[in-house]
């Protein structure tokens, strides 16, 4: 027995490697973060995280209130209230499930509730496809949610820990949604380094709601109605909190690297093969896999193509990104989403990238938008090559449609 105790203690102290999916990695992060209240309601592909969490709970590995609500709206409302009462919380959803929670999603940032949620990105209904599209999580982009897209199970785990740390920082107190591409990330297993509890405890302080704690010892009223005399000031406070996120994120990534020995470089976006690149592609999430493979292939053919993967979409690191992009002669943004009727009919990311460039001081490369991989359709290496061709054309000043659909039967 004494020997077993030592083995168990060793486990607490040391990292281990496990073969797990992105969803499971998020569930493991919940365990490591010792989350207090988790609410769930099944919808694919988010429901995978729900299964892993319930397994952890029933195995006695995670001690939390695990509530299966009667729908997503209640699911998000319950954690909102629990979080206001000082509990560290986790929840999540996908596609139209996320939309059904919309009212709760809108009030959460205004109430400064640092809820951490996982969005298993899924196409919105109809036609009820299960595959990935980013429009679900993007619907809250204006509301005060921090939004991050991860591309591996490892990044999912690490980002969840960082999300707790940043969201629950008293300077921030904003919710955070971690987007994991449906199927590509939620359902595929990869080898993940699971950090020791000791390291996590060092990295992640307890959630302290401080002056905003809803508790009999701190009698406050939360969410009284206010009219035009109050609304602008309340919105301005959220603006200030979101403005502070970048610095707090940087601190958290630095600290993360010191404790866990894993570095993500620039927290906001990942650069791949950009040092000598002529043109770059951009995108979010697991799109990085086919893009990176295609770039390796094209580089062998002498094409100097790079890739910038946006990690944090909110806050959007506009100045840094514009500076980065000013080094290239053209940019191709691949959106796994749509924004019908938007400027140039582009996807959301392309529109934001153009907007970031417009007011930046440096050189402004042409931006071509591509819509690809909707509903979980595969983005193939030849697709990426076609995209690259379009971007090269733009770089050479050849007229290009500003939005192009890739991988469409036509």
């Amino acid at each position, binding site marked *: 027995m004494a020997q077993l105790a030592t083995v168990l203690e060793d486990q607490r102290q040391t990292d281990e490697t496990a073969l797990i999916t992105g969803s499971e990695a998020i569930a493991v992060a919940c365990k490591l973060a010792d989350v207090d209240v988790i609410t769930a309601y099944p919808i694919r592909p988010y429901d995978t995280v729900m299964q892993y969490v319930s397994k952890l709970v029933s195995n006695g590995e995670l001690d939390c209130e695990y509530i299966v609500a009667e729908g997503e709206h209640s699911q998000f409302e319950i954690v909102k209230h629990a979080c206001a009462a000082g509990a560290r919380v986790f929840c999540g959803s996908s596609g139209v499930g996320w939309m059904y929670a919309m009212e709760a999603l809108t009030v959460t940032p*205004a*109430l*400064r*509730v640092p809820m951490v949620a996982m969005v298993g990105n899924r196409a919105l209904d109809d036609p009820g496809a299960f595959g990935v599209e980013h429009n679900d999580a993007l619907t809250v982009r204006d509301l005060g949610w921090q939004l991050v897209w991860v591309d591996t199970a490892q990044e999912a785990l690490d980002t969840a820990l960082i999300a707790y740390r940043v969201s629950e920082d008293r300077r921030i*107190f904003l919710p955070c949604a971690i987007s994991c591409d449906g199927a590509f990330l939620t359902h595929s297993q990869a080898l993940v380094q699971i950090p020791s509890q000791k390291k996590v405890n060092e990295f992640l302080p307890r959630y302290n709601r401080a*002056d*905003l704690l*809803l508790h009999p010892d701190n*009698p*406050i*009223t*939360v*969410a*009284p*109605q*206010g*009219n*035009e*005399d*109050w609304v*602008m*000031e*309340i919105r*301005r*406070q959220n603006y*200030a*909190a979101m403005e502070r996120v970048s610095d707090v994120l940087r601190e958290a990534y630095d600290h993360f690297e010191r404790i866990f020995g894993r570095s993500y470089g620039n927290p906001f976006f990942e650069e791949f093969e950009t040092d000598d690149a002529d043109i770059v592609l951009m995108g979010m999430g697991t799109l990085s896999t086919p893009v990176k493979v295609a770039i390796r292939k094209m580089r062998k053919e002498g094409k100097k193509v790079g890739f910038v993967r946006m990690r944090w979409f909110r806050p959007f690191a506009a100045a840094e990104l514009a500076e980065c992009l000013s080094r290239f002669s053209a940019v191709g943004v691949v959106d796994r989403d749509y924004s019908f009727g938007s400027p140039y009919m582009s996807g959301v990311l392309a529109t934001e990238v153009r907007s970031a460039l417009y007011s930046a001081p440096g050189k402004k490369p042409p931006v071509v938008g591509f819509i690809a991989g909707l509903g979980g359709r595969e983005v193939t290496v030849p697709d990426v090559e076609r995209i690259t061709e379009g971007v090269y054309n733009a770089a050479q000043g050849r007229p290009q449609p500003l939005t192009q659909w890739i991988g469409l039967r036509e």
Partner: protein
Amino acid sequence: MGRLFAIEIIYRGIYQKTLASRISRAIVLAAHQEGKPGISFGRYGDSPERNGIPAKNFAIVGTDQETLEQGMAKYEPKEVDITIAVDDTLFKGVESWAWYGLQPVNKLLKPGGTLIVTSRETPEALIKMAHRKETPYQLAIVKGTPSFSGLWVYKDDHTDVRILGAIAKLLPELFSLKSVQKAIVNEWKDPVKAESAARSCERISTTEVMPNQGNPEIPYKFEFPKWHEMGEGIAIPSIPAGRAVEDPVSHATGGFRPDRNPTFKKFTTRTMRPVVNFDTCIKCTLCWLQCPDSCFDVTPEGLYDANMQACCGCGVCEAVCPVKDCVTMVNESEFGDNASQWEDWKKDKAAYKIWLEDKIKTRSERSHGFRYRGQYEEQIPEMLRIAREG
């Protein structure tokens, strides 16, 4: 630029909502008869329209479209030619909601503007209730009991058209009586209403109110905090628990007075207030339990004193009190201050008894809604007399 006219109608939320919007609508329609464009609007809200809370409607008219747009560019006019108060207890002021403080009823009036009120009171009694204003203004009384025409009922006692007739006399530049009558016939198809307007136009007269007349109190008000001074997360500190009450004579302490919202005193939300006979109270606690606004302070000897900072004048305490005439609702215009009745009783019980009897005898009624079945019928002879004699 032409001339811009602004008129506000102050009313009691819900009870007089329809009345106020009818008046402001008819003002615009009458002006339209003379080719003047206008708009009619209310500041909508949630609580501001709840029972008895003072609320406002506005009619803005311009001699031409461009002038009108100048006036419309403001959410709420900063000054008005005419203020109409459709309930005379509103003369004590307007607390539309939390944080606005107490607005004098005459606050928005331009120098020399006119305050029209429907009332049976004398000018002297009314002037006493309103706060002092730096510049002189005119007071015009449309004689009658304050009408109530809210969400559920419309008491068609011609208050609307009588006010319109009065405006034709007081501000002829806005519209003539003829235009008012045309608008009335178009809108209500009722020639009798047009008659009422003419009679009111003929009878209305004004009294000048000077800066040294009226309630000298400085109304309480608040500064809004800046965004970075406010607490975050739409969380506000709760109102602290209360404390014991001090006897004004013996200085003994006991009982309990809950702390109350410091930014919303409800002095002006009521049209009646309860007066309590402490000599006959049997301390049954019912008023204290049932009051929806937790108004009752518990005195050291276990009596219940309705605190006027909190009372909205609903009348529940009167309805639940098991002792005859122990709690009686009395018209708010009968009171000059918000002092504690219990303290007055403590200081001089004989004087309090005389005061109490006088209050109950004169005006135990409310201006909208009735205390008992048949009270409306009782008012009709007086209303008819006013209609005949003015």
